[in-house]
């Protein structure tokens, strides 16, 4: 699991954190179990936080129930726009 720069204070500075689960939702739940500071910061009761996007490998996904293969990279992306 790849953590965006602005959220690394909640993972002790780590940019990459191992997490397991069969779906994106399960992987995130595992991540939050390991790093409770992220509770509510990635997903809340309404789904993915609006300022975040999630990618598996090089593809962004919009369905938290998407399956995650063993060894896959899940990326949390903190959205910004630009000028």
């Amino acid at each position, binding site marked *: 699991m790849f953590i965006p*720069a*602005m959220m*690394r*204070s909640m993972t002790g500075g780590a*940019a990459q954190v191992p997490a397991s689960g069969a779906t994106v939702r399960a992987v995130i739940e595992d991540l939050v179990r390991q790093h409770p500071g992220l509770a509510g910061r990635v997903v809340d009761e309404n789904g993915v936080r609006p300022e975040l996007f999630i990618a598996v490998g090089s593809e962004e996904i919009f369905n938290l129930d998407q399956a995650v293969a063993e060894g896959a990279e899940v990326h949390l992306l903190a959205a910004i*726009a*630009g*000028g």
Partner: protein
Amino acid sequence: MTDKPNYRVIGTRPVRPDGIDKVTGRAQYGADTRLPGMLRGYVLRSPHAHAKIRGIDTSKAEALPGVKAVMTAADFCAPGQTVDQLPDLSANLMAGTKALYRGHAVAAVAAITDEIARDAAALIEVNYEVLPPVLDVREAMLPGAPILHEAMRSRTPTGPGENPSNIVAHTLSAFGDADAALAECDVVVDIVTSTKMVHQGYIEPQAATATWNPDGQVVIWTCTQGSFPARQNCSQILGHPISKIKVIPTEIGGGFGGKIAVYLEPVAAVLARKTGKPVKLTMDRSDVFEGTGPTPGTSIRATLGATKDGKFKALKADMAYENGAYPGAAATYATMVAAACYDIEHVKIDAFDVVVNKPRTQDYRAPSSPAAAFAIEQLVDKAAEKLGMDPLKLRLANSSHEGSRGPMGMPFSRIGHAECVEAALDSPHYNAPLEGPNRGRGVASGFWFNVGLRSSVNVTVQPDGTVSLVEGSTDIGGTRASLAMQLAETIGVEYEDVKPAVVDTDAVGYNDVTAGSRVTFASGMAVVEAGRNLIKEMTARLATAWNVPADAISFSNGVFSTADGSKTGTFKQIAENVVGRGPGLTVSGSVNAGFLQGGGFAHHIVDVEVDPDTGKVQILRYTAVQDVGTAVHPSYVEGQLQGGAAQGIGWALNEEYYYDETGRMVNAGYLDYRIPTTLDVPMIDTILVEVPNPLHPYGVRGAGEPPIVPPLAAIANAVYRATGQRQTQLPMSPRRILETTGKLG
């Protein structure tokens, strides 16, 4: 390169729908709003860069005949309440207890004329306790520096800091082990750079007008880059429901990121509430410089290591970015873009976001990327020189590519950096010899990730078979045309038969800001979706009319036909004859296009001549190469490349916020803040590389931001070749060139 499909409309160069209004002066910009009984507002700004506000006495101003209302920060909320959402944004709009930069708004007046409003503002008595300012990003980081926000604690990789600090955040971005890898590199080059705060320099100053009806309905006219986010911000600052605020976007005379944040809108709304009349506020140029959001000054130290064969192994950098008066994330952005052009295994970037007593910085075209490239692309040039390699071939050998890890750790999808460098290598410019004394050629690459985000459009079929395209994205760069073209392509009509309009926040679904080079990409996706929905709906209606199953009707090249070819009709015929007899037909297209578009890359080549006696740099020739995916309207895409290069030339050579020691910007006007004139910029040649973006149905990539990234470094590299002297500080003004080339003794 992938073969480009044979498009019918995409790739042509039609006239823009808004063109006639703009060249004849009929277009309505921010300051053109005029309403019956309208009052004029004026904002009083702090003359001090750093001061506590002990009290504000508005009684004399209120007593001046013609004055209808005076407001301070306290008026944003009901008495006793505080702004609980966006406190920094609110405090930046109007200082409550502390003025944090010169130009910081402290009060505002509404009066029957602009002159009276200005006179009244001069009668407002603000009791300041002046504090020492801190203006330099590195000085602000030192212990003992004047502290802007007593309650602020640094966010660091190991948790929050213990003491008040001007360092908003220390962000670490690390892949691999850069320190160990650098120790093993054959060639190591380093650089220390600094850049000054610069402004987007849009032509049109900010302007906003508001009405506030007794029933609480608020209407705001403003030249914003994002009417929906503006509505959201006004709602939060005013504590007023979104449903009661309508934002009407006017035409916009440039933004480049500087017109995302709200400044005047909530102030106009409060003054309208207090007076019961429409209130218009406009900025003059000094307000724009001192009171809006420029891009940060920076201080960067960077080291690049390579093998003797020219393979980059490690990059290490320490980057400090000014956030201006309130916390931001400019340096954090820098970690996301700095190393993007190259496939480097070991990267370590320590980034520091720092507050200083200057205007709160905002995005400016590929925010944070140009200053980072100024350092990194000079390092690449130094490495090429040390390795004895052509600087383009060195870039090609190390280029990022599909599947290589991007700067956020995520692998790139299909990108076109290498193709840009190859096109530069093959270009007439790079292959033409540059002769003559005091001349030099420089090259540099640049990256901006380009975003997707959310867009919505509505499409309505008109009785004559034309279609209206209703969109909510402010048109800054010709997007009425580029979206209408995508719709025409999708539904098989002529471009001239699509009539685009930008509408208010009540009239279309949610649209994120016109920024991040996203509109032609993401609103384009919404347009394609709407077009496909339209064809589907028309097919259903046609099935009834023709009395055939819907799946027996096909649509291609603008023609509906049955499988046996017995019945056919063009879009226009069917729209007129079939849709026209039925109920009105409006469809929508709404997308969340995700965060990333896959990445936009540019490469620039520049020839300069440096006058050794005066230090003046003349741009002799300039070529901008960019992967634009698919150029929907090539003229407007070329215009983006040329505009970005021109802004970069200004940033490189002459633009800077020039401060005196008290924190006053002494050049807050276009006389002494030198953006380039037409005589300072040669014709900028463009080379459009088209590597179709797999994430967009027509392969579009954002084009607006990457072209401002390479110029700073490209020009610095060229000046180095012309003079033998590396330029590590911006701007490379005549004065600095004389000083650094030893001409002043």
